[in-house]
């Protein structure tokens, strides 16, 4: 998959969110860009950092997610916040979402992440967030690099596209 990246365009993405739904846009764009010969660098910070853990347990919550509606019995259902806050509802929404992902042939985040690594997408973990949330490097994927804002800025200044997700 690795080809000559001479004159290649480049993209940086700051990944700040780590829920099952928000994990998709950065990984879809990173893998697709890499497939289109774009050099990609992803910087994982705050809640996005969890997406680099060896073992993922991603979840999605309807709580405070007013635009979230799930297909149900031919229509769409929205969950009132007072229901979303009940114990077990996050788990239920997560299983529903994972079921839909499987049924509709959407890639899992694990698969997209692996595809990103195989296509030489650079993944940088924010060292400050590692310290702040007390993560250990042994919790994280082996091919992750560690750096801070200056590392990101150096990449961003050279990139054709910079995204914050």
């Amino acid at each position, binding site marked *: 998959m690795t080809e000559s990246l001479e004159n290649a365009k480049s993209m940086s993405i700051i990944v700040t969110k780590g829920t099952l739904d928000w994990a998709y846009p950065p990984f879809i764009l990173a893998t697709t860009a890499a*497939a289109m010969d774009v050099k990609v660098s992803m910087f994982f910070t705050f809640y996005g950092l969890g997406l680099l853990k060896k073992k993922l347990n991603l979840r999605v919550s309807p709580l405070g997610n007013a635009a979230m509606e799930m297909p149900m019995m031919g229509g769409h259902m929205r969950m009132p916040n007072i229901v979303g806050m009940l114990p077990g509802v996050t788990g239920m929404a997560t299983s529903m979402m994972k079921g839909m992902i499987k049924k509709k042939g959407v890639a899992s985040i694990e698969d997209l992440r692996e595809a990103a690594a195989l296509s030489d997408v650079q993944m940088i973990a924010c060292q400050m967030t590692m310290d702040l949330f007390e993560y250990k490097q042994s919790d994280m994927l082996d091919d992750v690099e560690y750096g801070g804002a200056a590392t990101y800025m150096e990449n961003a200044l050279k990139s054709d596209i910079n995204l914050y997700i």
Partner: protein
Amino acid sequence: MADQVLDAKGLNCPLPILKAKKALGTLPAGGTLEVLATDPGSIKDFEAFCRTTGNELVERSDDGKVFRFILRRAA
């Protein structure tokens, strides 16, 4: 007849593109790849992919359900 066939039926964005890219990588320059997909978004996506990467979209057809693309790997 394409040199290689990729069955991407039932797969959703971005998997048909990712798998096509991988398959193209195994072909020599000028080699052809036939992609079968059911994702309606794949029509625009394969056009954009080919315009951007220099691989040629030789042919496109569909039977209303399955979209068929023939790609030729860039030299």
